[in-house]
């Protein structure tokens, strides 16, 4: 599904923040991405999300060499990847329902064609009663769940989550982890970037550990 071969990344003329990364993310797989602050987790997530281009090396995603794709092709590829940002990035002027439905809306689908689907997903993540609320009045946990729902509504093949439990209490963190596990069981590959050792200890999954820009894999 995703293949990195000797990938390196530097910002401008600075030092390489990621060095010689070679790994694969297989379909239906589940992995944690971890490492100390500044190790390059967010940069690696950006590469996975096609938001950055590598300075060197080869990234293949869904069978395409991403370096050869134009902007529209990258947008189409990005729709196959869902991302949950640490700071949620919900649009404050839209209701929770509209935020979650946004990926379907930008695909050009009519609202009545996805309404039931969105309501069902909102009920599933426990936001059925909050679907008409605006993000500023949602709690941190509710925002996190709305962000996850938005990331998965278009049924992505790969889900990336950046510190999804960073803003919530441990019990909600556990519940969110169960949510990711359920999504993975349904066929979505999941990459969770986290510092939270306790969270990783709760689920036996592959660990990608970044240290000084290099990747160590513990299957």
């Amino acid at each position, binding site marked *: 599904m995703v293949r990195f071969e000797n990938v390196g990344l530097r910002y401008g003329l600075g030092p390489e923040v990621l060095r010689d990364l070679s790994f694969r993310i297989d379909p239906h797989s589940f992995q944690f991405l971890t490492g100390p602050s500044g190790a390059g987790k967010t940069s690696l997530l950006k590469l996975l*999300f096609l*938001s950055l*281009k590598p300075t060197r090396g080869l990234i293949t995603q869904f069978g395409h060499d991403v370096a050869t794709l134009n*902007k*529209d092709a*990258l*947008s*189409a590829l*990005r*729709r196959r990847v869902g*991302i949950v*940002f640490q700071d949620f*990035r*919900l*649009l*404050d*002027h*839209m*209701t929770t*329902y*509209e935020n979650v439905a*946004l*990926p379907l*809306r*930008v*695909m050009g689908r009519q*609202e009545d064609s996805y*309404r039931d689907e969105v309501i*069902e*997903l909102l*009920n*599933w*993540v*426990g*936001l*059925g*009663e*909050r679907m*008409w*609320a*605006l993000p500023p*009045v949602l*709690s941190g946990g*509710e925002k996190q*769940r709305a962000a996850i729902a*938005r990331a*998965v509504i*278009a*049924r992505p093949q790969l889900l990336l989550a950046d510190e999804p439990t960073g803003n919530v209490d441990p019990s909600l963190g556990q*519940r969110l982890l*169960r*949510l990711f596990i*359920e*999504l993975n*069981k*349904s*066929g*979505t590959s999941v990459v969770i970037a986290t510092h939270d050792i306790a969270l990783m200890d709760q689920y036996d999954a592959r660990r990608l550990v970044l240290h000084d820009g290099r990747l160590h894999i513990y299957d």
Partner: protein
Amino acid sequence: MPPMTDDRYETDLSTPSRRSGEPRFDTPIVPRNSISGRALVAVVAIMTFLASMTVGAVFQVRHAAADWQSDVAKEMTIQVKPMSGRNIDDDVARAVALAKGIPGIAGVKPMSKADSAKLLEPFLGAGLSLDELPVPRMIVVTLASGAIADLAQLRRVLASEVPSASFDDHRGWVERMRAMALSAVFAGVVVFALVLAATILSVTFATRGAMATNRPVIEVLHFVGARNAFIAGHFQRHFLLLGLQGGAVGGGAAIVLFAILGLVSRWFSGSVGGQETSALFGTFSVGLAGYLAVVAVIVLIALVTAFTSRHTVNRTLEAID
């Protein structure tokens, strides 16, 4: 995708019923009624009003200059000088008859001795008797509007039949008037160009300012897989509407003001001050072309806001990538 009905999550993750909003399905992707959006509408309205006022002033000057030129060009003078051995009254009568015989001349009015004395009164004082002075007599010749009179023929017949008469078609004045009118219109166009440039710059920067607050929206749309053209199209439509809204307010206010000034100038045209003003500037009217120019300014400024927003979106997306 997991099964959508999962009892565990319905019980674990449900929150108490707290409806805080009304159902909404189609909120515009670009936020409306933001503070920066309202500020942009205000800037566009003010600048469109100023640009429209400049347009009105240019058209008014053009009309006034054309009126002056036309008034001067419509009237000509035959001057009959006293000449020994000739009767000036007979010469005046003959010159009048010759002028009336030329097609395209609407009126020929000889100035009487009293009229001539009145004309000279400011220079020579009252109680002047023209019999004692060799003062030439004037004949005012008025052209029919839209007609082309054969003035060369008039000049020829006057020279052959009334040697004491000379014909002045005010060509020198007309040339000066034309030069002055051109200068006035050119100055007006330069001022309008400067105001338009200032308007475009102000609107461009105000649009960029309004767009800066929308960067998070652009980023989210980009990250959920929206194509660049989709994002740029939404912003362009939104800012085109804002530009048209502000332009309609500013340009509409200018159009209403022109109409009011036109009415007021017509009401006061009978008064002494009104007559002097109308002699200088003509009746206040920017004409259909002036109103169309204001509409063109509104459309231009709206297009500038739309184009600037599209350009800013594209630059933002390039920065994200």
